């Protein structure tokens, strides 16, 4: 399931951030997207709407890659 979630996270990021085009599951989320803390929160809000689960923002503190983020989403589904 996590692989599927990772692909959906990447698709969502690509819709929202042009820099996400071409990034893979193991890419660094923040460096790859070049986003600041406010945009990171916007991404979290969109993830909540996409997946119907709430991921607290402190979970981002040790998230590095899209796959890490997808795992945090998946464990709340």
């Amino acid at each position, binding site marked *: 399931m996590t692989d599927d979630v990772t692909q959906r996270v990447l698709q969502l990021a690509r819709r929202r951030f042009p820099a996400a085009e071409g990034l893979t599951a193991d890419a660094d989320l923040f460096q790859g997207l070049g986003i600041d*803390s*406010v945009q990171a*929160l916007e991404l*979290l*809000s969109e993830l*909540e709407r996409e997946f119907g689960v*709430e991921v607290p*923002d*402190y979970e*981002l503190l040790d998230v590095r890659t899209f796959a890490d983020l997808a795992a945090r989403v998946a464990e709340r589904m």
Partner: protein
Amino acid sequence: MSLTWRELEGPLQGALALELGTHPLNELGEAALVELERFVADALPACRGVLVVSTLERGFCAGADLRGLAAGLAEDPEALTRVRAFLVRIGAVFRALDEAPVPVIGAVHGAVFGGGLELALCCDVLVADPSARFGFPELRLGLVPGFGGLTRLGRDVGQAWVRDLLLSGRSLSADAALRAGLITQRVAAGRQQAAAERLLAQALRHPPAATAAAKRLLKRPDPAALDREIDAFCELVQSPTVLAALRAFVARTDPLPYVAQERP
């Protein structure tokens, strides 16, 4: 751009829009407080209702002016007296807004953090768009909220949510805030002000005496609890932990450093 108010028109005639428009994100410092005091003294007593809104694209309000607080604590030996006086003054303004006999509707988007959330909690009803996020990041700085936010959040959504938000420092999305009962209406992107104006227009159809009576019954925070928040803030604010956190905050280059702490 600044904190101003204007008369609304049509079905909202007699009501005022209190518009926050100070860059970078409506930080609440001395300048904002002076304008809020003018609003409460000169405009609020004669109006039929209030719409509280930010005119800035990036959000509603990031909270207290921590840069101003840091500068004051560094330079002024009488800082604690000044901080307490500021908290008492802003507490009086927030109580006036919270307990006004007229409907006060908040239309919020983007960051609604710290003192900004405390301001929003003075509104009778909050309408948010999907970009809104709500949180109390104060503990990250070694502080507690001091503008009455804990008391009002507890009143509005219950202590379990207060503890979660305060102790985690996390922020809630608009959808999560809707589930928690912090907001009661979530509308499409950019539609929060229009929806809030329609809600205010509906509230203004009611006889003012009934609205005033309802608000007297509903919105009476415990004054002693509000005072305890000020005491707790003042006990913490001059600690080395807080001074170091404020120095680190001021040194940050993130355009909106209020909303997240440094990643490890």
